[in-house]
């Protein structure tokens, strides 16, 4: 198991966003998370990547506990220092890319490897150029984010996450901020990563993509996982009424 999340609870004020969610991902697996907005998909990713702290439950990466629930039922995290170690296991690709605008594409990719992971600049640069090549944007290494199209920016963001050599990569609606014609180029890159057995969790509204690329689909609604399983099964033969109703909207 790369990540195990057990009985995760998360609440914003009075609103329970995650209600006792358990979720794990095996090495090489590609999991798609679908569901209406407000269902807790993004919050789940943000908890997995430590951008949000859970209120209860446990998060285990590579068999090591990052957070667990104490005797009083409150979630306890490891120390700040140890948490940085856990962060290195996971990468996150944002809907809004969040590239660093003042850094060139190359610098976006090497800054954290050099200054956070203390890898050599040479090695980081080589890794970065290989990744940019794979993303089909090696010629943009010295450009600045504002000079790129949305699709190119998102591919840089994917490369930036991969440059940290994470064990698992999370995508939070990676194509939702893109024009339809740019969506394809980003999905193509994710598909290519799936073929290389990169472990990934993708929150998406691109149903055909989820169906074609993932090994498992999770349908979330109201802070719980309503249904999960083989994509073909979930999409063509959903068991739960809520899943059916949700998928029907996409068929129109």
């Amino acid at each position, binding site marked *: 198991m790369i990540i195990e999340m057990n009985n995760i609870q998360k609440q914003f004020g009075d609103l329970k966003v995650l209600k006792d969610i358990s979720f794990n991902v095996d090495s090489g697996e590609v999991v798609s998370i679908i569901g209406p907005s407000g269902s807790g998909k993004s919050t789940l990713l943000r908890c997995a990547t430590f951008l949000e702290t859970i209120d209860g439950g446990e998060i285990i990466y590579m068999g090591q506990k990052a957070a667990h629930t104490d005797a009083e039922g409150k979630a306890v995290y490891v120390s700040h220092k140890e948490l*940085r170690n856990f962060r290195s296991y996971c*990468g996150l690709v*944002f809907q*809004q890319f*969040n590239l660093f*605008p*003042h850094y060139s594409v190359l610098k976006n990719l090497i800054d954290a490897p050099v*200054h*956070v992971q203390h890898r050599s600049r040479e090695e980081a640069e080589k890794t970065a150029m290989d990744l940019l090549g794979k993303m089909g944007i090696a010629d943009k290494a010295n450009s600045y984010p504002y000079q790129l199209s949305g699709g190119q920016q998102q591919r840089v963001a994917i490369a930036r996450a991969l440059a940290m050599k994470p064990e698992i990569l999370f995508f939070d609606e990676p194509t939702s901020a893109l024009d339809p014609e740019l969506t394809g180029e980003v999905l193509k890159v994710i598909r290519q990563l799936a073929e290389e057995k990169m472990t990934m969790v993708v929150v998406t509204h691109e149903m055909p993509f989820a169906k074609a690329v993932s090994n498992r689909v999770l349908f979330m609604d109201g802070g719980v996982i309503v249904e999960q399983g083989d994509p073909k099964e979930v999409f063509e033969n959903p068991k739960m009424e809520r899943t059916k109703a949700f998928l029907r909207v996409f068929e129109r």
Partner: protein
Amino acid sequence: MTLTTMLSTMAAGMARTTGIFALTLIGSLPLGMVVALLRKSRFGIVRGIISVYIAVIRGTPLMLQLLVWYFGPFYLFGASIRGWRFPALILGFIVNYAAYFAEIYRGGIESIHIGQHEAGEVLGYTKAQTFMRIILPQVVKRIMPSVTNEVITLVKDTSLAFTLAYQEVFSLAKQISASQTSFMPFVIAGVFYFIANYVVAFAMARIEKSMDYYR
């Protein structure tokens, strides 16, 4: 008094004006950042003190603040204020300008999209690294126009030093004008201020341009 004597006396005054200007910037630009960060402190008491400080500084005239800095030690503690004129002046300016810079910095910091902080966090940067490497460079670019405004205002505000009878160019202009019954010193002072601000505006434009490579 010949025009040459007048000019050279006032040039010496302009040097003192430049001194106030430079020392104020050296002190208040970094102090403003400290204030801006303290304003976002997790301790309510610290935030409270900082907002009172900013409210008082912005709510009272700089001229009054200078007088308080200079005469305060005598009236409050009966302390001797000999040799205190220049330190009081510089302190007054620094503490005043730091408050304004702090507000500019705060606006700049808050204008940076939360996604930049989150991207830094996810990539494993420490909070300090995220601030220094990711946030601050973008803040600097964004606040340059407001900082330029403030710096230009400072050039002109240095004339308030006349309140403490410090012999900078404006005090001298007043004195010489009165003693020589001449309008000339005011013209010279005006030209000096104008040139100084021209140089400041030029330098700031250069700095802004140097950050033009990204948006």
